[in-house]
Every structure is written in C-alpha cells, then in structure tokens.
C-alpha cells in the first residue's frame, strides 16, 4: 500500500510540469507591430483579404508579360518551356469540366485572387517578389483576358479582382477536415 502511494505521488509530480506546459507561457519571441507585419504579410485570402492598392489592365499587362514572363511562359502564355497559362481565348472562356491537361491554365483556379497571390510572391522565377502591385494587377488582367475571363478594358484592382467570376469556381469539393479523422468516413478517401 505504501509502495503504491509513493508511486501515485511520483506520478502526480511527473504529471504536474507537463500540465503546466500546456497552460503557461514562456515569454519567448519578439512582439510584432502592425507596421512590421505589413512588411511581410503578403498571403492573400480567397476573398481578396490583404490585396494592396493599385490597378492594371490587359493592355498594360501585355507589355510587362512580353518583357518579364514570355521567356519561360511563351508568347501570350502558350508554347513556353513551362506549362501553359492560357486555355480558352479572348471572349471565349473554357467551359464544361476541366481535364487534367486543362489544369495548366489560370482558368482552373477557383478564385481570381490565387493568380494574383502567386505572381506577386513567387514570380518571375529569376527575381521573385520584384513586381510592383500595379504590374501584378496588369499581368492578372492580361492573363484573365487571354483566358476569356474578363474584357480587354476591365481594370483590375483590390475591389474588382475578387469579384471576377472564375469558370471553375464550382469545380471543387469544399475542404472539410474531420479531426481527429474518422475511420468510417476517412479524410483520405
């Protein structure tokens, strides 16, 4: 009996710090001000949360695309050394379901903000993050125009871009994680 009491006592002692860890803070790390966060917080949400001021049109984008993008993506986003960016054509967006090959184009993305976000943070590959917001808006306008999603004179900015209707908006099954995963309805199915 005494033995088991000792064991119980030691278990309580062992358990206490672990329980404490989950609750208390260590006060490690440096506080960030909103101004500091603005210098690196570039991930854009599906409704356009975080889009900066600026604007651009397809005409402006054509010039930038030729200078900064065509070397890899091909003239007008086709025939380059990487996957094409354009399916459909001006005035004629891709319709119906998307085959595996159709995934190449920006038409496949469910949200218009995805193209903006990726170009802004990751392109051009030789100098990612070097494009100004006006240039990114113009490039998105150019690609959407080439894909037949918007008109040539449509101005893309923080307000208009999230409202663009993407042809594949309804082509995705919403992500609903079940956690912890349910073996009878597994998330990997």
């Amino acid at each position: 009996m005494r033995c088991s009491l000792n064991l119980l006592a030691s278990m309580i002692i062992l358990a206490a710090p672990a329980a404490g860890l989950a609750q208390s803070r260590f006060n490690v790390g440096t506080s960030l001000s909103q101004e500091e966060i603005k210098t690196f917080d570039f991930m854009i949400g599906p409704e356009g949360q975080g889009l900066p001021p600026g604007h651009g049109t397809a005409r402006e984008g054509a010039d930038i695309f030729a200078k900064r993008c065509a070397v890899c993506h091909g003239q007008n986003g086709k025939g380059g050394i990487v996957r094409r960016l354009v399916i459909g054509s001006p005035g004629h967006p891709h319709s119906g379901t998307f085959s595996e090959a159709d995934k190449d184009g920006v038409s496949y993305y469910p949200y218009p903000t995805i193209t903006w976000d990726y170009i802004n943070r990751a392109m051009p590959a030789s100098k990612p993050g070097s494009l100004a917001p006006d240039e990114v808006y113009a490039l998105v306008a150019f690609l959407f125009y080439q894909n037949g999603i918007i008109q040539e004179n449509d101005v893309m900015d923080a307000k208009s871009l999230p409202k663009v209707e993407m042809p594949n908006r309804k082509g995705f099954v919403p992500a609903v994680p079940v956690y912890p995963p349910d073996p009878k309805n597994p998330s990997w199915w």
Partner: protein
Amino acid sequence: MDTNPSGRRRFLKHAAALAGVAAGAGAGAEWAARGQSAKPEAKPEVAESDAKDPHFGHGEPSRFVKSGRGARMSIDHITYYTPLQDYAGIITPAGLHFVQQHSSHLPDIDPEQHRLTIHGMVDRPLSFTLDDLKHLPSVSRIHFVECHANGSPMIHNAGNPNMGLPVQFIWGMTSCSEWTGVPLSVLLNEAGVQKDASWLVSEGADPGKFTHTLPLAKAMDDVIVAYGQNGEPVRPEQGYPLRMIVPGWEGPFNVKYLRHIKVVDEPYHTWNESMNHSVMRADLDGKSRWYHFEWAPKSVITRPSAGMKIPRPGYVEITGLAWSGGGKITKVDVSTDGGQSWREAKLQAPVLPKAHTRFNFDWAWDGQEAMIQSRCEDEKGVVQPSRAELYKNWGITEADKPARAIHFNAMQPWKVARDGSVHDAMFS
C-alpha cells in the same frame, strides 16, 4: 528578401544545368557539386591533410557505396528519389531523404537572419529567432514524410537512367526521420490564438514561396516546428533552418524553409493547393478534391524488387516498409502467389505511429515464376487495398487511366521470372 543577386545567378546556373540534363548529362551533378561546396569549413586547428579527408568533419560514405538519390528536374521543379532498395531499418539518412521542390533552386538561408512569425488572428503577434525556438521545450519523434504523388500511376514506366531502380523512382518519395523541434502548439499558445480562428496558412522562404493551409486542430495536436533531422540540423533540401512536420499527413503540409504562419478562419486554397495538389475524381462528379490530409496505410516490398535479380533458387529474405498516417502498423501480410494465399511477415522493432515500419519475410523460392506483394493494416483496422479495390472506391475503371491519381496506396506486385529477374507488375 529575394532581391539578392545570387538568387538570379543560381536560377541561371540551374537553367544552364537543365540544358545539360536535356542533353542526357547526369542530372545530379550540379547539385552534388553544390552540396560539397556547402560543407562546413574545417576549424583552423585541423591539419590541412585531415580537412581533405572525406571521412573527417561531416563524414562521407565509403567510396565504394554507389547508391544515391535519383533525380528528375525541370525548370520549375526538382525531384530526388530515396533509394529504398539499398537501405535497411526505418531511418532514411538525411542526405538520402526524398526532395520535392516547387521552385527552380533551393534557397541558401542564413539562420542568423531567419525569423519565424506568427500573426493573423492572435492576441500577440510574435517573431522567433532560431535561438528563441531552441530555448523552448523540445520534442523528438520519428515520422515519415511522403509526397502525395508517391507511387501514383503516372510514375510507373516513367523512369530514366537518372532515377534509379523502379522501387526507388516509383515509391522513393517517402522517407522517415527523427525530427526534433518545438511543438507548434507551444508557439501558438505563446501568440494566443483567438477563438474564431480555425485554420493556418504557412509560407516558406523558397523562391516559389511554397504555401499551405492546415486545420488548427491538427496544428494544436502533434505538429512540430523542426530544426533537427536525425540528430543534425535539418538539411537544406528539407527546409533548413526550419520545417513544419505534420505527422501522418500528405507531404505538401510539411512546409519547408518555414518563415510565416498566419492564423486565419478559412482555408486559403493557394496556388499549389488548388492546382498541383487538387485531384479530379470520377466519384465526385468530376469535381476536384482540394485536400486529402491523412495518409492511408501503405506498404511495399523493397527487396527483392523490380530491376533486381534473385541469384538462385532457395532462401530469399523479402523485406520492405509499411506506414500509415492513421497510427501504428499492426500487421503486414506477404503473398508470393499473386494474392491467392497470404502469410504474416515479422515486424521489426521499433514499430512507431506514423513512421516507416520494417517488415521481413522468409521465403523459399522454388525457381518458378512468382508474384510477390505485401499488404498492411494499421491500428484503426484499415487494410491497404489492391489496385482494383482502390479504383472501385474512386469510381473509376482501368480504361479511365487516371494519370494523376494521387494519394495512391494500392499494393505493389513484383513479378519474379524464372531467371530470377524481378519486374513491376502493377499494370501487367
């Protein structure tokens, strides 16, 4: 941030190297050269002769060991495959861990300059240095990391001389390491997650700014912000200096070069998640699945496997790996007659949750044609399916030829011919 001129030089150098690959030159050469130049310099007190010894400092394998990673590269993508056929146990040596890089080159990050931020829906937005993280309570756990496309139908028969034997280039995008770091829950607790938050979106510092979404519940459970891999700093190909390890879930969740974690209230569906990592499914009326989360149980015989030759009839040790995102592997069966009969294999200790598990099976080969394959079961009672069973679940037929059917966990049959040569029999 990315404005340093070396990024452009690296990109151009990489592009030049790729031209060599296209012409049939060894794909790994440029990267191998870079790996050597990145070796820590010897300290001054070491004699010059010692410093040149490849077994001193960060020692290299014997010059007689020829096994290594196989490569497939393009202008915007790097893939290295782990040589599963050549190794024993469950731990993948860090220099042989598979690589799936969604950019033209790897970043070269100074850990002194690197910061991890947690912001968004938190009470106290914070920035952590590597030193800060090493002063927090650590955990060290053995987990596999696996590319979501590993073993998928598109990879079979796509081999080239740079990619190694079939088991390497078909299944070599899974690797298993001891990951050491801080539980992400500790960091989120420091920052104070607000009550309406439900997801995280994390960004890496690689040229492609690899970004992935993660449900908050998983983040608070067993996710590790890792700075250690198999006892040493996380390798540059694996995200040095920091990698998010999401145990048991598909590879893309494990963001490398981790620098920003934004706490949000919806999935962000970023570029990779919406394009490369979404899958069109016949059973979902042709719609695409955005995320698959957890890996289902998988296993593969690594030896003997396609491209090898059994020297003579008689004793053969069949060995392989099994793993599951659902927890521990509880059982592995092996068939040597094309699935007509099964016998249980021996599981080699340690058997750990969400980790590679080594299995061994004694076989007396009679010199006749044979079909060998393994089948595993995890602690949730989920059994690895055959390809036919998997296709049925997905609502597709053989004729559909699902080239990019990712998240593929079917059994892998290897055919043994009378001369002892072993061949991939997944589709024949």
